[in-house]
């Protein structure tokens, strides 16, 4: 290939010198059209060699057909935007009128949306929420470790590891099947009741143990699906290089699996963030507990709305991040990437 194909102005000097004095003006002259057809095959041949030179765009002028098509598309886009706006306004109006016009609305407004109660409860709920965040930050890494270890144990094939594998299967089956709140009760009241020396008795620690064991079982399955989604040919290539099973997992399979399961893992963590409130049943003063203390004093439920708000403030950004990562993964797969 020559440099001439890469630069848009270059291909036509001989044509232009004969046809017109001003080669830059595309209207009406045959020059650019003729050169586009004659350059076409050469340009596509250059592209198919895998070199980085794209076919020159400057030779393309929009045909009338394309101009009409784009005008139609714009018209259609304008129409769908106005329909969407109108329907949103209608739905919102109906909802607002429907709720506020209901006979009990003044009472609901006073009980759930009282500004004074909100201001009153917020500092305590916020302080409680910091404990939720702390529980989350401690539980999350532990869950990742438990989940990955259990998933890896389930990939072991040697008969020697049968007992370990059986324990892993038993664990995921049982702990996914028991409601998280039940596990928290079980550990929160069961472990102290054993009266073992050195066993934790702090309700926060016990609550974290319950959360970790419950979520660990879910996350183990997420990791396992990620590990199984890595094509067997990757394993064959690694084993053919004499990497052991462990090395194959560590350097080849798990790094690819982990990238793939990031969106579902984040989804589980959004869920964990709000489930930290379940620890409330053991008594620590986290957001939900603080809210119910306030509600019990005043018979007003605004503190619960206050708690709902702080949870949403944390989970919504996390959910958006999950969507963003999932969309990015989908884009990469569309583009033919492997990750």
């Amino acid at each position, binding site marked *: 290939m020559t440099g001439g194909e890469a630069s848009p102005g270059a291909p036509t000097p001989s044509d232009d010198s004969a046809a017109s004095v001003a080669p830059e003006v595309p209207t009406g002259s045959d020059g650019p059209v003729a050169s586009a057809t004659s350059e076409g095959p050469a340009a596509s041949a250059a592209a198919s060699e895998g070199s980085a030179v794209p076919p020159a765009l400057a030779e393309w002028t929009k045909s009338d057909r394309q101009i009409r098509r784009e005008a139609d598309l714009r018209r259609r886009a304008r129409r769908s935007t106005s329909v969407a706006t109108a329907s949103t306004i209608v739905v919102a109006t109906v909802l607002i009128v429907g709720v506020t016009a209901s006979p009990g609305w003044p009472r609901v407004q006073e009980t759930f949306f009282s500004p004074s109660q909100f201001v009153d409860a917020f500092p305590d709920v916020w302080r409680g929420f910091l404990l939720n965040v702390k529980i989350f930050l401690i539980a999350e890494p532990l869950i990742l470790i438990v989940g990955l270890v259990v998933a890896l144990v389930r990939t072991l094939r040697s008969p020697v590891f049968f007992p370990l594998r059986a324990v892993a299967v038993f664990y995921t089956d049982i702990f996914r099947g028991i409601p998280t709140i039940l596990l928290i009760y079980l550990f929160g009241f069961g472990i102290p009741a054993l009266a073992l020396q050195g066993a934790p008795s702090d309700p926060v620690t016990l609550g974290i143990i319950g959360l970790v064991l419950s979520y660990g079982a879910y996350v183990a399955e997420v990791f396992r699906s990620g590990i199984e989604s890595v094509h067997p040919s990757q394993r064959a*290539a690694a084993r053919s290089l004499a990497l052991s099973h462990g090395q194959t997992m560590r350097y080849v399979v798990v790094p690819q699996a982990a990238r793939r399961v990031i969106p579902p893992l984040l989804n589980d963590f959004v869920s964990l963030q709000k489930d930290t409130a379940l620890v409330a049943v053991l008594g620590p003063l986290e957001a939900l507990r603080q809210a119910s203390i306030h509600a019990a004093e005043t018979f007003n439920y605004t503190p619960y709305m206050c708690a709902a708000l702080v949870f949403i403030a944390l989970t919504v950004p996390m959910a958006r991040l999950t969507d963003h990562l999932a969309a990015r993964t989908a884009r990469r797969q569309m583009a033919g990437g492997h990750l």
Partner: protein
Amino acid sequence: MSLLTVEGVWKNYHHHSVLRGIDLEVAPHEVVCLIGASGSGKSTLLRCVNLLESIDDGAIYLDGSEITDVRIDPDDVRKRIGMVFQSYNLFPHMTVLDNVTLAPRKVHKVRPEQAEAEARELLARFGLADKAGEYPDRLSGGQQQRVAIVRSLATQPRLLLLDEVTSALDPTLVTEVLSVIRELKDAGMTMIIATHEMSFARDIADAVCFLEGGVLLEHGSPEQIFTAPEHPRTRGFLQRVLDAGRL
């Protein structure tokens, strides 16, 4: 003494025999091409030789010792055998350099600097010096397959197994991979090559084996197999290849 001996090897999958008593000898520096239709057992034979598949009968010897003995560690055998796959199977999350140095570093315990230097030298030898830092999905199929060959060479194997390494490639990219294999032959590498490229097999092989239905029907020099095949089935296969314009 032969480098590799395959003795009466059988391989079954669900009541169906894929290999039916294969015998094969490969001498040091010899290049053996396996030809035959898809499903004839070429790939399975290669996978059995580097123990990616277990065999159901027979034995395989490498350098005179049995590698199909269940008491030996398969990883010790695979350290001496390189394999290149039809679909390259590069590790997509690693750069070309990391793909090539992974086994030397982790399996053969070569110091990282030394592994990198050796890898760069090999990449340069096969025209890939400027690709060391790239990820595999940025390379063409031909470049990826050359990287896969370099990766299998980085551990200095005694024997290289190539499983239809050009089948996934666009015809214009086949040549660059075949010329790499030719260079390896000139360097004295012992290779078993499963291939559909008959003209290449004819050109490069010291011996050609025709497989059909898991049986090694004919084994001879390329001249004999391609010009005067003895077995009627070999003749039939070559005629079909010829009719398809592939010879």
